[in-house]
């Protein structure tokens, strides 16, 4: 099946084996897609459950996984297979680290514009696609969903499939590559992915605006959204994060903005932001790439690393993601815990971490779930402390989509070889 060197003996799995939260009987390290196909073909025949992983930096996402026979590492599949600079398209194996991939295409002055948490600590392309996690740059470039053009994957029954393509415009058949984005490895084992790339921009500047009230920050944020500016990154921080990120210590709120373009265009956009927010902001700092690196690292990694009771991601309408700060402050159910909140308004996303008390944390989680629901959004919890996991499930309500999602899972993997409980509670 796969050569002996691909199956380290028990206790000798190397330092790169993550904490799965379960104990696989065996960890497999295939080095090509055919080997993965054979593993899954065998597993589906024998009823052995297989857990695919690569960097292992996002295992905290989704529900805990039950008994698994084999963990399947993609670490040996880490090459760029195709990169045609003039097409701005590249195919990469899913075990490659995102940072390495970015460096590879960066040599042609091109950009794979996704900056997920864990970028500098081993996040892989496969993990990125499976989780559809993103970072501050999603304001301009979206998530993996917007960038994925094609996948080469192995179905749970071992069949190798190529879906999508290598061109930026393609409507032949269902868009299954996008279905894979965020599916947490529950449908197929993703082995290769083809992405659209972007050109690197020649000039970059970061702005940090401080505000002394929520009202003034909200007004400025709305004005920025309505202005003729195109920020690459646009985040709002609460008071605590403004201090902890050393963004605008003492400010009630801060807004982080990054612009990338020709120098004159960046300068003009900064000028415009300054003008439209001058009546509201109490501080204004402009930074170059080097000076702002630590700040963006903090924003990208939030809410990780975390000693929090749990973290959550709320998907909201745009304005609700601006007003979420006052919703949190006025919510009595959140008064007994420490809350940190970062909002990405152009994406309608709020990232919230909650620290403190067991019972209070549970109450806070349920309150946030209700809040997301009342605002027309959804919620996902992650990094939930072990003792709270029974009471804080990873996913909020999927609504009417749930039964269709289950239908998809059942069709792709009727034997639940790839642990579906990451997403679906046991029936």
């Amino acid at each position, binding site marked *: *099946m*796969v050569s*002996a060197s691909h199956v380290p003996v028990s206790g000798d799995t190397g330092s790169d084996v993550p904490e799965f939260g379960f104990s696989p*009987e*065996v960890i*497999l390290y295939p080095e090509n897609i055919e080997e993965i196909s054979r593993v899954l073909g*065998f*597993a*589906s*025949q*024998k*009823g*052995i459950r297989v857990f695919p992983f690569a960097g292992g930096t996002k295992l905290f996402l989704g529900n805990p996984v039950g008994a*698994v*026979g084999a963990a399947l590492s993609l670490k040996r599949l880490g090459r760029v297979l195709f990169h045609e600079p*003039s*097409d*701005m398209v590249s195919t990469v194996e899913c075990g490659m680290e995102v940072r390495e991939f970015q460096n590879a295409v960066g040599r042609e*002055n091109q950009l794979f514009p996704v900056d997920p948490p864990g970028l500098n600590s081993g996040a892989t392309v496969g993990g990125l696609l499976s989780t559809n996690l993103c970072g501050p740059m999603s304001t301009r470039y979206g998530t993996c969903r917007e960038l994925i053009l094609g996948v080469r994957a192995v179905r*749970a029954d071992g*069949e190798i499939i*190529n*879906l999508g393509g*290598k061109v930026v*415009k*393609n409507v032949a*058949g*269902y*868009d*299954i590559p*996008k279905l894979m*984005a965020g599916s947490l490895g529950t449908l197929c084992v993703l082995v290769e992915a083809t992405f659209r790339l972007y*050109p690197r921009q*020649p000039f970059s500047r970061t702005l940090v605006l401080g505000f002394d009230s929520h009202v003034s920050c909200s007004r400025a944020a*709305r004005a920025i959204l309505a202005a*003729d*500016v*195109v920020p690459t990154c646009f985040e709002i921080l609460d008071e605590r994060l403004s201090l902890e990120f050393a963004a605008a210590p003492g400010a009630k709120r801060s807004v982080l903005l990054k612009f990338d*373009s*020709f120098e*004159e*265009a960046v300068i003009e*956009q900064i000028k415009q932001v300054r003008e439209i927010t001058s009546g509201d902001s109490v501080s204004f700092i402009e930074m170059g790439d080097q000076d702002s690196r630590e700040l963006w690292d903090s924003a990208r990694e939030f809410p990780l690393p975390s000693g929090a009771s749990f973290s959550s991601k709320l998907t909201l309408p745009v*304005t609700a993601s601006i007003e979420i700060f006052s919703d949190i402050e006025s919510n009595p159910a959140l008064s007994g815990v420490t809350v940190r909140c970062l909002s990405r308004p152009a994406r*309608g*996303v709020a990232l919230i971490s909650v620290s403190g008390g067991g019972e209070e944390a549970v109450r806070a989680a349920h309150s946030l779930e209700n809040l997301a629901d009342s605002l*027309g959004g*959804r*919620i996902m919890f992650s990094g939930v402390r072990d003792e709270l996991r029974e009471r804080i499930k990873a*996913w909020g309500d999927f609504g*009417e*989509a749930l039964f*269709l999602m289950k*239908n*998809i899972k059942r*069709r*792709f993997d*009727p034997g639940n*070889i790839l642990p579906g409980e990451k*997403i679906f509670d046991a029936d």
Partner: protein
Amino acid sequence: MDSQAVKRTDRWKSRIASELVGILGAGAVISAEDELIAYESDGLTGYRVTPLFVVLPSSAEEVSLVVKLCNREKIPFVPRGAGTGLSGGALPSREGIVISLSRMNRILDVDIPNRVVVVEPGVVNISVTDAVSAEGFYYAPDPSSQIVCTIGGNVAENSGGVHCLKYGVTTNHVLGVEMVLPDGAVVTLGGPTPESLGYDLLSLVVGSEGLLGIVTKVFLRIIKKPQMVKTLFASFERIEDAGASVSAIISSGVIPAGMEIMDNLSINAVETTVGAGYPRDAGAILLVELDGPGAEVSAQVPAVTGILRENGAIEIKLAADESERQLFWKGRKSAFAAMGKISPGYYVQDGVIPRSSLARVLGEIGELGRRYGLRVANVFHAGDGNLHPLVLYDPEVEGESEKAEELSGEILRVCVDVGGSITGEHGVGFDKKRFLPLMFSEQEIDTMNLVRCAFDEEGLCNPGKVFPTPRTCVEPGMQKRGSETAPAKEMGELF
């Protein structure tokens, strides 16, 4: 056009007609043969099927009731928007019902602060922009039929347009849908939020060509109008140089809103009909539209002009004002219609290639034209490699339309050979389903069928489209877990 359609009795038809009238009212059910003719085909008029009935529901509830009736009676049904599709996606099923969404044409909500417009599927594409234009916003996907095509059809086909290089296609602008599933249930996927959680079902529905259900409400993302728009026109002696300019512009870090190329035959067709001022002796012209913040566009114009010059542009013009900009575009937008003036018949193809293959593919298309003895005009969205070769023929000449169709098919083979796609925006529909195996293996098409079966186990929703051969859900490509069992560590022992 499914050949195995059940033949129904007149009595049965009469009963179904009564039931439909009971659901929708007499004015919303079409059964007279002379009125059904208008629904026999979509924009691809080469295929025609007369449906049993056409119904014109006014609400999701009515759509749901009709679909439930279809399920009970096993009647295939085909959703239809404005009927402008070019792949036969709205071709009726024999002995089936066409569900036209044309009466569901209301804009339900305009929410500028949240950048969302909620519409019914029968709303015409351009109406969305019209509804938000005064507020400084617009709806980005702009297929060339945007003054007549509807949002429901755009969702079905994942429509593009000339500006999708920078702003993406329909899937990038649909935040959510309400839809009637093939069993009649009404569900909402996504909503007014830019992001969703869980499986991305919405991306399956957009571009599903009406096979997964009938969309009855759409949440659309609107975007701010750019502060500045500048359009450059360049003419070239050789079309290859126009193609090289396109790659060089993007490589330089500039992503124009759109880049369009027309070859000499197209230029002359346009000049003969609308007189856009294109030079008749040019091998090709390239239109480059730049938009965004004023300072950015102002910096891009000289950069792009320099690239055009370096790549051999003979003449470069920057539209001085909006009327000159419109004139530049007038020729491009009239290109398809212009072909009708210089040829009694033409066949529009829609294929995609990597930009880097442009010169090779154009050469091969030229060679194919010579081999078949037919003229082929090339008009394309150059930035994203989306070709629209127009194969000219005379339907009065025996066998020529067949030759044109065959040549069009050969062009698709060339597109796939260089790593491209058989369709960039027109869809597979009925017309191109035979070409799907050029791109995908049986296992891959089976995998697509898994998606279809998750939504439509009975296969009643727009049957006979996309899939090259009929596929059922009774014999899925996937096997259930094997009955044998073994401890996982045996995997290691076997290695």
